[in-house]
């Protein structure tokens, strides 16, 4: 019997599979397709202090082996999320990770405090890497000093483990990862989307109303794996890997590169049951490559 259980940052996940933030809403829609208890964890859509209406449409565009999105962190605001969405999620025995976003350090702190006080959230994911908002988000994720400050402040505002979600839109991913670890991060999530653009030929203009968007899907999988592989030897905190995963084989690649768990994003749109299907397949794929547990596979591709 292959063990899928993963222990990381003080959390116990029954398996290493979770839907990625922003691709799964707050779970209700996907619960029509499968039992969310099957998931190792559920990562909620980003919460900001006030509600955000996001960017104009079109907000998504298909690209070769991927897609661009520029939603712009639309969400009902942390209070509404706590009131309307968390009670639904808390009925499941999966680990609940809330994604925290903001435009100022104070906003990150405030959102983190409110979510921590509910007692219904198991960990926070600090979103310092959204490429689709004008203020905040990625600016904290492109400067190691700012990343450090926001991580430290959020760590002081919560008793929960904090995963810092890193942006791939940086020259030196290792220094960002180290900055987060030094600031007290309990883990890393990597990677967020890569900034991109598509031109719409009939209008001769960028297709997305926001002009740029975040590229996701299989197109970015090699970038994600390379970055995790580079970061893994330099940090001692666990990594949640993401970027184009759409099969159990993909998931195992991420584990080998150094991820302790993985998140599934864009693939949910193609197949709403992709998460449970990967969970089902994972033991066979691990066995096939000689692993009896998930933990055995973590970082095996890396010379540490």
């Amino acid at each position, binding site marked *: 019997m292959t063990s899928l259980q993963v222990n990381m940052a003080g959390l116990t996940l029954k398996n290493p599979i979770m839907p990625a933030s*922003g*691709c*799964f*809403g707050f779970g*209700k*829609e*996907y619960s*029509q*397709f499968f039992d969310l208890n099957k998931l190792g964890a559920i990562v909620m*859509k980003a919460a900001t202090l006030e*509600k955000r*209406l*996001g960017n104009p*449409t*079109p*907000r*998504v*565009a*298909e*690209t070769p*082996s*991927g*897609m661009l*999105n520029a*939603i712009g962190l*639309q*969400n*009902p605001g942390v209070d509404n999320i706590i009131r309307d969405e968390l009670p639904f999620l808390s009925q499941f025995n999966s680990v609940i990770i809330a994604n925290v976003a903001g435009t100022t350090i104070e906003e990150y702190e405030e959102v983190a405090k409110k979510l921590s006080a509910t007692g219904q959230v198991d960990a926070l994911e600090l979103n310092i890497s959204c490429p689709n908002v004008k203020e905040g988000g990625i600016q904290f994720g492109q400067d190691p000093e700012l990343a450090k400050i926001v991580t430290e402040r959020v760590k002081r505002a919560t008793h929960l483990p904090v995963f810092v979600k890193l942006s791939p839109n940086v020259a030196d991913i290792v220094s960002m990862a180290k900055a987060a670890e030094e600031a007290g991060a309990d883990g890393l999530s990597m990677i967020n989307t890569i900034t991109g653009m598509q031109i719409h030929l009939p209008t001769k203009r960028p297709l997305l109303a926001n002009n740029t968007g975040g590229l996701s*899907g*299989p197109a970015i999988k090699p970038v994600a794996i390379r970055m995790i592989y580079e970061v893994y030897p330099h940090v001692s905190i666990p990594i949640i890997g993401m970027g184009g995963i759409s099969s159990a084989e993909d998931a195992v690649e991420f584990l080998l590169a150094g991820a302790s768990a993985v998140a599934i994003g*864009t693939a*949910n*749109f*193609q*197949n*709403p*049951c992709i998460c449970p299907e990967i969970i089902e397949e994972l033991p066979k794929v691990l066995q096939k490559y000689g692993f009896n547990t998930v933990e055995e596979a973590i970082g095996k591709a890396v010379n540490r």
Partner: protein
Amino acid sequence: MKREKMTVLSISPLAKDTVEMVLKTKNAVRKAKPGQFLYFQLPGHTLRRPISIAAIDKESGTVTIIFKVTGKGTELMATLPPGSVLDAIGPNGNPFPADENGSNAVLLIGGGIGVPPLYCLGKHFCAQGVKVYSVLGFQSREYVFYEEKFRKLGETVIVTDDGSYGEKGFVTDVLHRFKLYDTYFACGPLMMLKAVTKQLEDVPGFISMEERMGCGIGACYACIIEANTEEGYKKICSDGPVFRAGEVLL
């Protein structure tokens, strides 16, 4: 809403860049209502394609869809031979309020590829004994389809932008001729919906919208439209695609 494999029974060109496809389905045909859509996965494409249902035949277990070839995904879809199997999620979204409406006569207003869901709706109303009038607008003669089918439902006026078929003009140019209906239902380009809802401000109506979608089930917030509600928005895929006229800001 379920994910299922549907088999292409027939595929045929209806008009320029316009394709009709009949699909054998187990689940969708039992659940689908006029105004809902199916969400198709195409090999080699990341995002599914939302396509509204043009006819539901419970006896033969088939649904008909009509789509316009506008890009690589629909191009591929148009080449699928009968017997091909398509992965679809559906039926998605909310239907037109056709059962609880209490109408005696309705006006259907369709523009281009917005016409198909109205055919589904018109058939439904006809079967209930509701009188159906239709105004259908197309770019030009080569894009016209389903004229005869709509005429069988009731009085139908066809307009084309360039006057190459039917009457020259937009759907809004002929709406004033119809007086004996109590509710209208419109589907078509945004500009058309804007003009129609403005012109028929005092008449109860419902519109159906389209937008580029991500998940197609309400989770990803890609297909948002501004709305006159406390939240300030609606999701086209799951709150729509059908909205009461005036509910969303066009």
